[in-house]
């Protein structure tokens, strides 16, 4: 199969078809649990994917697009998996409703019980229970009345879940159109610093004045800021990377290093204030990527990578579980000062990561308050508990365990149980209990996917991601100038590392941070940003193809 627009068109059409199948699976799974799924939403999802499937045809005609379609197809594949999992989640009344959660849960349990009774109980038993006495027989779903969905055509078609992806696709096309122009790219490259400053001002303002995005629900409006930051850094690195190689006694000149450092540090201030540690992690890994690619001297790379490894090592050592620390000599002494410095929030995240199934003692700084509030709630229910806890250390321990797994560790623990219950092929779409994991449509979507599609589902995501990254690297390799190269590498690294940080957080390979899985998660700004990045990469790929064609030497040069 050659990488031509036509073969990608075929793959895209097949994606639409498979998504239709997966939606039917979700629909049927829902019927078994006694509720209906929205037909409108399903057709909306199929429609969106159809639009994406026909986009190559349009782009090839209108823009004479000649770049690599692999990037696009891999992204659409990820996006379609995301749509399926989101469809599963958002059609579940227990997951969606806020007040009537337990009611929806009871309804589902009752449906399952009635099915069991219908299939197994003798007429005599049914009568004793208080049901019509019928012979045991397999359940016929067509005779049941599932809970109906209440949605309207306008409600579905003009909701954020329709408009945001459409807008994202629109942005992507716009960006392709913009970025394939030389003058625009030149403008960006020359004004990198200005661009960063212009982004920084509103971002800092937002960060300082309020909790910004937190007030707009679950959104993160600073997400698109990644792009100008990247362009700025790539622009300055493209200028300075050669100078860095010029060293005096092995040290580069300050006037080459300082601007770079300032540029690299800039995005960290607003994200630190916003406490978005996930973005910080992604940013640092992307900047390291760019630096390592651009810098030519081995010693400089070594210093950078070495210092990063050292810092991370200190952090990890500082927050290793106490029992592990005690096994290694000298480690507790080393860890003590680190622990004293680390902010509570980070310590908490690290504990959840490295020792998440072991509740911390109630005296721990960052756990005390949450524990106390949970304990007070329990005491309010039962005043005798206080005395009991005082007399019996086991009771107190039990309360602590319950509090830990019901409050702070609830979401990560349930997510891990989800991965565990998924097994190899998952429990089947609509047959898992993904609704138990809070917000599993955005941050924790990989857990939901792992539960219902299993290891194979995870493999789908990983492989699609690797195809995307390889195609991105390919684009960077083919680029002719350093700025484009760095931009491509940076964009690829952004998508790639964001996905890794997200999945690593759920599988406990990394501390959990609240960032989304690009293209898969349900999101507003993050989805738009991902599509814009995809558009930029595609534009670069297009430029490479055009360049190559232009540089093709005259006929006589070759003698094939």
């Amino acid at each position: 199969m050659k990488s031509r627009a036509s073969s990608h068109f075929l793959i895209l059409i097949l994606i639409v078809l498979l998504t239709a199948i997966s939606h039917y699976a979700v629909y049927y799974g829902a019927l078994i649990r006694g509720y209906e799924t929205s037909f409108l939403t399903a057709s909306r999802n199929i429609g969106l994917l159809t639009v994406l499937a026909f986009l190559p045809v349009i782009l090839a005609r209108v823009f004479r697009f000649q770049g690599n379609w692999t990037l696009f197809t891999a992204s659409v594949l990820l996006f379609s998996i995301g749509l399926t999992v989101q469809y599963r989640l958002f059609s579940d009344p227990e997951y969606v409703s806020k007040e009537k959660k337990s009611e929806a849960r009871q309804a589902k349990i009752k449906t399952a019980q009635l099915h069991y009774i219908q299939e197994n109980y003798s007429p005599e038993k049914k009568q004793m229970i208080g049901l019509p006495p019928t012979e045991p027989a397999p359940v016929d779903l067509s005779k049941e009345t599932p809970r109906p969905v209440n949605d309207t055509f306008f409600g579905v078609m003009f909701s954020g879940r329709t408009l945001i992806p459409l807008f994202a696709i629109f942005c992507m096309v716009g960006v392709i159109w913009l970025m394939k122009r030389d003058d625009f790219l030149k403008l960006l490259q020359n004004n990198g610093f200005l661009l960063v400053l212009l982004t920084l001002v509103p971002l800092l303002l937002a960060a300082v004045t309020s909790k910004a995005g937190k007030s707009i629900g679950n959104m993160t409006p600073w997400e698109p800021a990644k792009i100008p930051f990247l362009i700025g850094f790539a622009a300055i690195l493209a200028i300075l990377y050669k100078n860095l190689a010029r060293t005096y006694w092995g040290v580069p000149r300050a006037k080459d290093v300082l601007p770079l450092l300032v540029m690299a540090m800039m995005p960290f201030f607003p994200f630190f204030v916003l406490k978005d540690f996930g973005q910080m992690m992604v940013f640092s890994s992307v900047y390291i990527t760019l630096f390592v690619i651009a810098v030519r001297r081995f010693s400089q790379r070594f210093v950078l990578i070495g210092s990063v490894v050292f810092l991370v090592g200190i952090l990890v050592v500082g927050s290793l579980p106490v029992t592990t620390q005690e096994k290694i000599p000298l480690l507790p002494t080393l860890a003590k000062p680190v622990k004293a410095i680390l902010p509570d929030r980070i310590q908490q995240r690290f504990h959840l990561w490295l020792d998440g199934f072991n509740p911390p003692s109630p005296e721990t700084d960052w756990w005390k308050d949450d524990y106390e509030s949970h304990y007070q709630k329990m005491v309010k229910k039962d005043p005798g508990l206080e005395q009991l806890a005082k007399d019996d250390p086991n009771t107190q321990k039990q309360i602590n365990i319950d509090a830990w797994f019901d409050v702070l560790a609830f979401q990560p623990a349930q997510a891990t149980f989800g991965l565990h219950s998924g097994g190899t092929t998952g429990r089947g779409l609509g047959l898992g209990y993904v609704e138990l994991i809070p917000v599993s449509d955005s941050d924790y979507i990989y857990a939901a996917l792992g539960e219902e599609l299993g290891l194979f589902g995870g493999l789908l995501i990983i492989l699609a991601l690797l195809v995307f990254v390889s195609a991105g690297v390919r684009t960077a390799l083919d680029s002719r100038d350093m700025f484009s190269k760095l931009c491509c590498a940076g964009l690829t690294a952004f998508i790639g590392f964001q996905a890794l940080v997200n999945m690593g957080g759920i599988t406990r390979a990394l501390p959990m941070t609240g960032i989304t899985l690009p293209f898969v998660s349900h999101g507003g700004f993050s989805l738009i940003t991902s599509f814009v990045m995809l558009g930029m990469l595609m534009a670069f790929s297009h430029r490479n193809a055009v360049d190559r064609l232009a540089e093709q030497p005259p006929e006589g040069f070759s003698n094939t």
Partner: protein
Amino acid sequence: MILLFLLQLEKLRPENIFGGQVLERTPAGLTIVYLIGMLVLIWFLIMSFYGNFRRPKFNFEQNLPREVVKKLTSTLTNRSLRIWQIVFVLLAFTVYGFHVYWTYYATDANEQFQFVLNYKDMRSRRTSASNLRGWMLDRSGKLQNSLAYYKVDKDGTIDRTFPLEREMAHLLGTELGTPGLERTIYQKIEDPMPESWEILTKYKKPEPENRDVRITIDRELQAYAAKRLEGKIGGIVVINPQTGDVLAMYSNPTYSLNEAGSLEGHLKLKANLRDQPLLNRATRQFYIPGSTFKTFTMISAFRAGRQDIILQGKGSPECYTPSRGARPICDAGGGCHACGDVGMKEAFKVSSNQFFSQLANELGRERMGETANSLGITATETPKEALTQGFYPGIWNTSNPRIANAISPARSTIVNGKDLSLHDFALEGMGQGLAGQMTPLQMALIASAPANMEGKLMKPKIEYDIPPQMYSQVLTAEQAAVIRDIMSTVTEESGGTGGIVRAKLLGTGIQTGGKTGTADKEGVVVYNKDGTKKMKKVKQKNENGEWVEVEVPETYKRWDGWFLAIAPLENPQLAIAVVIEDIGGSGYGGTTAAPIAADMILKARELGLLGDKYKPQTQEKPAKKKGK
């Protein structure tokens, strides 16, 4: 034509391809199709990309020497990019490796994870809520006599219902605390959370299944036991000595299962230290058995072949003095009830302390310990060891160790170490002192060994459908008959301590045997009404030798009344142990516990559990005929 096409279309529906009659097969099959399809698409993508993976060669390069091309194309930057790509692939698969770890290896490798998974996974709660348990039927096996079943209540939810929700609370057990029969006795669903390929390959056409369990408890008798103990603290155990069937087992105070179902209610019950309603006194509370334990000492004598022993009963103040300087052991009220040369039969009838404490020392520690082991009692070397013996699930005859664990009794103990003084061991022989760790269930078992026609101790069982099992051959059939005869003197002859039983059963023709007991327990803590310990102030010397006032819990001496009974004498179908706590200084086992045992026998007769005594019966199943 179109109709035919539509019919074909109907056949192509996924339900018809995968479905069968298992509903889950449709989505599971579609999921597998989706996964395979997507993987194939990614394979297509990789294939299509592969041609693009190598850097495209320009035509002019083909004429140049290899070294030049290499220098020309692989710039330092591009090489770094390649290396970065490889690192990224490795990182991605590392993350995926963690996913694999949680799926396959975490339960084996990570103990903490395993614990939390069992304890806090909401999924298992959901599956267990959706999967209905079987029904629990009583020994009649009739649906109307179910002890636990489902019912659709007013607002339409399907609720677990317990007709004897207070009377059976300890046996059935709560959902939150220590498990009981409810959480263990039903067959577990093999795999409540199958994967989609398992659903497709393993789950075939469903057969209507039956998870119901029939247990040995008689619903009426159990309810009657609860009624009889109302307002008292204590326990009743009724066993069929021929098969080991537990017919009734009740402990008062009890609790309501509905109340204990919520966390709040459970905590409230747990906090009630005064009544301890959650404690199953029939199996997990230690009592001093008092004179009822003389049955045990008597069995030991028979096992040793010394049933004809004659011992001296002496008057006050000498009584029986085991060793010089030791406190003399007298019969209740001082002096001797059976004086002079006394045989086993007479001593048992009047419950002579002197006789049985002497007997213990005559038989020796080894003999007593060996008898203890044959009856399911643990004999320990020192009193300290006796305190840490835990539970004894092995006494039960169950199909599944989980059930035995759930209803396992506390391990009853006696101490027979060498370091014990003669006086202490003598006290054990009459059921006081270090013999004070007996559960009502254990006492019922002691009574059931001689009550068995072959002298066997049958393991108690709670499931109706499993065959009876012997714990040990305690006595020969002849010895058992003699002991039954001796036991009947207590209830049937005038002057026996349990004469009230005969009075109650007058006219029924049922002959019984038994043993009374009245035990005193020192140092029982007094509780206030709100569940706190009642404190009193006493003056004590502290380490500096000064007198200071300290608060200590107030204690008192408690009297417990006991009665063991077997009935009917010629082929016992019941072995009963009744214990009533705190009967007051003026009460006796014979006046408090014995009437309850007699009433239980009457009720059992009414229910047909005694069978027809004039006809020989099979030992496994007592005939369901009403008594006359």
